[in-house]
């Protein structure tokens, strides 16, 4: 579904990621882990079209997307939950969900999708007329995920979902991801919380200093000595 080949990108003279090749198969959950500054967010920015790559290609559903603008990429079926959620603070929760349904194909089924979302996230139904900026951190993250789902995506990209959230909230948020995974969405997740992320992964990549250092299944990662030491604390 998503095929990235030998992708390199950076900001001006600063090269952030080099020769990255990643694949997300249909319906699978792929995790990218790595330390701060490894280039994980930069990678998601390039895929979503916010940043132009220096070299390499990205194919989504057979179509080349590395030269496309962000709104075109989202219209093709990739939805993004950026770091911090970035809900629109001065819109109500309901309007944030309307914003998520902006693509024309999603507008047609707005009412049904909205009921689905309220079923998945009952708190959002309660708070639908509240200004999004006044929601709690966990609720905002939930709203950001719900907003991404409203566009009827094929692939959902999640950037550091657990960032800035307390441990119990993180558990809840990951439970939501499990629910989404169970519905058959393809997920590409960037995470620092390796322990929790690995449990959801069909496949994982380790990104360090802009390069892919290791890739494999959850088992492969759990048995790898460097990863056990540096990321799992075992």
């Amino acid at each position: 579904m998503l095929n990235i080949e030998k992708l390199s990108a950076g900001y001006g003279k600063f090269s952030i990621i080099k020769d990255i090749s990643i694949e997300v198969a249909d319906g699978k959950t792929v995790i990218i882990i790595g330390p701060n500054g490894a280039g994980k967010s930069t990678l998601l920015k390039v895929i979503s079209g916010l940043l132009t790559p220096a070299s390499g290609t990205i194919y989504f559903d057979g179509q080349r997307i590395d030269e496309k603008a962000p709104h075109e990429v989202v219209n093709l079926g990739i939805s993004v939950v950026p770091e911090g959620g970035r809900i629109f603070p001065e819109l109500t929760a309901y309007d944030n969900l309307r914003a998520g349904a902006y693509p024309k194909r999603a507008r047609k089924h707005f009412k049904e999708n909205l009921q689905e979302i309220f079923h998945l996230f009952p708190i959002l139904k309660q708070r639908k007329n509240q200004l999004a900026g006044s929601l709690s951190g966990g609720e905002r993250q939930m709203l950001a995920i719900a907003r991404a789902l409203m566009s009827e995506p094929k692939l959902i990209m999640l950037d550091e979902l657990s960032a800035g959230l307390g441990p119990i909230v993180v558990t809840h948020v990951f439970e939501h991801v499990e629910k989404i995974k169970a519905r058959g969405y393809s997920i590409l997740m960037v995470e620092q919380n390796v322990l929790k992320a690995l449990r959801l992964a069909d496949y994982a990549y380790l990104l360090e200093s802009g390069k892919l250092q290791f890739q494999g299944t959850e088992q492969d990662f759990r048995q790898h000595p460097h990863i056990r030491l540096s990321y799992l604390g075992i």
Partner: protein
Amino acid sequence: MLILNGLVNGLLYGGLLALLAFAINLIFGVLNVLHLAYGQCVMIGLYIIYVLTILLHIPFIISCFVAIVALVGLNILIHVSVVQPLLKTPLLNQLIALAGLIIVLENVALGIFGGDYLGFNLIFPAFAIGEVYIRISMLIPFLCSLAALAILWLFLHKTYTGLAIKAVVQDREMASLVAMNTKQIYLITFAIGGLLAGIVAACFAPIYVVHPHFGLAFTLTAFVTVVLGGLGNLLGGFIAAFFIGIVSQIGAIIFTSEIGEILVYVIFILIILFRPQGLLGVKVRSA
């Protein structure tokens, strides 16, 4: 009662200022650009209305409609040729370019029409409710302005394009991540600015006379309104417009119109001294 008349006149004047303020705030909120040449656009609209109605004997309403369409076109042209190419350059470049546009538009008017004043010279009736006199020439534009603002409010809150505009104002990168075409939104916003400029010109036509430097006076008042209300804040601009309208008209009725103007600026300076972000503005903390 003098003050009551001042109040009523102030409300009527404020209604028109509110349209100007709305357009400038919208453009600033979406594009982060101050449309310095906005008064000049209204001036061009007025010239079109006068030329069509007086010289070509076209019915007033049709002239207004033509002017509105022309101003939408003019602002789209301004956006595509002046604003959009400079969007990623330093703010100063954008401001200077728009200031240059002021000079261009004024001199185009000067070149075509000369420095003479052009206007309708009509006298409109006024009616009285008790001791308060209401001029029809101000009442109709006021009602049009309110109607336009109401339609705009509905547009912003009920349509998907309006939603996109609100989203771009708050977080333009995120807006593009929910499939909103920000370039298109910029263009639409400028077009709306042109539409409003046309409506303002239609409302001003019966009351004012136009000359090439007409824009300057209104640009100053419009920007004072916008800053007073809080730059970028639509509701703030609305409130500030009526505030300024009322203060200037009450001042004009009690003293003279010059004192009314001075009063506006004195109060503006005082408010900004103690609340630099304006009435409803957001305080920006310096690093």
